[in-house]
């Protein structure tokens, strides 16, 4: 069975103030895979995720999503199958419960109908005790778990993760990683994980990609990417050396 393609990028460029910060001639992201995107700060990782979520449009080129040639023209229901967990999630000044229910409420689901699903997620992520607490009072790790829960609540087909575990303690990191693994074991879910933690990439990813200065250096199966990289800059990066 041929692998189905989730995102197909063709000649995609993003320019900020006359500077090209992302330039990807071609990239395919497969349905159901977990692609880890590594690279130093400022290399364009977040920009790529914003394009994949349709929050911004590329200045040139096209991003196809499934059968649709243009991500920018997706019908609302299809667009709503893609979501992002950000490095610094902005939670609403409401209860934890209401924050987790937000995506469902946006989709027109009633408060009472949403409740069992919300409760289930809060239980799984160790947040049940905080259900009625105001979200702004949570710790960083708890906030990040709320952010993952609010994205999983509506069963998205694509989950974009932008350094979701940066600045978190090991306990919270493993909680989040475990929950993502469980979700992928349960159903087909395409994940693009931006991380600067090469160990995390190695633990979770099916494939890895290195982005440098807005350009893709190499994309490959995780094991091969780490053990026999084709590009010297990947070798250097996975060893934790300076790359540019």
């Amino acid at each position, binding site marked *: 069975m041929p692998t189905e393609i989730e995102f197909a990028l063709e000649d995609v460029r993003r320019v900020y103030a006359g500077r090209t910060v992302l330039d990807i001639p071609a990239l395919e992201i497969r349905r159901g895979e977990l692609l880890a995107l590594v690279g130093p700060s400022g290399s364009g990782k977040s920009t790529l995720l914003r394009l994949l979520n349709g929050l911004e449009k590329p200045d040139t080129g096209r991003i196809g999503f499934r059968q649709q040639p243009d991500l920018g023209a997706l019908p609302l229901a299809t667009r709503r199958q893609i979501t992002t967990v950000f490095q610094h999630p902005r939670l609403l000044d409401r*209860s934890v419960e209401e924050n987790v229910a*937000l995506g469902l409420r*946006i989709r027109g689901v009633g408060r009472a109908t949403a409740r069992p699903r919300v409760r289930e997620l809060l239980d799984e992520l160790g947040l049940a005790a905080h259900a*009625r607490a*105001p979200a702004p009072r949570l710790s960083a790790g708890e906030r990040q778990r709320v952010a993952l829960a609010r994205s999983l609540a509506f069963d998205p087909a694509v989950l974009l993760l932008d350094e979701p575990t940066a600045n978190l303690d090991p306990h919270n990191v493993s909680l989040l990683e475990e929950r993502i693994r469980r979700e992928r074991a349960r159903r087909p879910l395409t994940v693009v994980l931006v991380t600067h933690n090469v160990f995390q990439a190695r633990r979770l990813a099916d494939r890895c990609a290195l982005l440098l200065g807005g350009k893709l250096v190499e994309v490959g199966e995780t094991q091969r990417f780490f053990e026999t990289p084709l590009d010297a800059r990947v070798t250097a990066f996975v060893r934790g050396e300076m790359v540019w």
Partner: protein
Amino acid sequence: MDTPGTLGAALLDAVILLASGDAALLAVLGRTLEVSLAALGIATAVGLPTGAVLGLARGLPARGTVRALIYTGMGLPPVVVGLFVYLLLSRAGPLGDLGWLFSVKAMVLAQTILSVPLVVGLTMAALEGVDPELGPQLAALGATPVQVARTTLREARSGVLAAIAAAFGAAISEVGAVMLVGGNIEGQTRVLTTAILLETRRGQFSLACALGLLLLALTFTLNFVLLRAGERRTLPRAD
């Protein structure tokens, strides 16, 4: 027929006046609420969405000009607005055929003109105070632009409620414009502020003070209710 400086007696008078359920007073109270709430309703219906669009559309062209216009509007001298509405609605004026001069409608019109810039400007400011990252994050959760606006408005609710409270306070305490365009007609267009002016003119200071205290009480009550509404959702909801 009493002297100024009877503030203590005024408080007592206010209580007695209210307790007596004086029909004329109740008519003035009712008209005051009717005019200021109607103006507030229209100003909110117009000003909230406008302020939301201006507060959220950060890249709008001519933003500075729009902002300067709104801030000017927030400081419009009420008596000038009153004069403008008066000339507009006079039978000799362009909208004279409406027959609105010296009616409740004229008062609502003047108050609305005064309140809309307040609602727009303060709503805009409240939304600009919200983290600019919130919008994209809501969009990433599947929110449409309208849903983003609504959720952001709710996030900025204390500022938005302050906008509404300020507009109400301005409307209910305004006297120059409503005097000019309403005419302070007993039982028709007399509101608390114009009644206070009349009683002061008549030398009835303690009655004027009593009416003033009523006005304060009314404003306080509405502000209190609005502030409570703003607080409510930050607290954990009880089952």
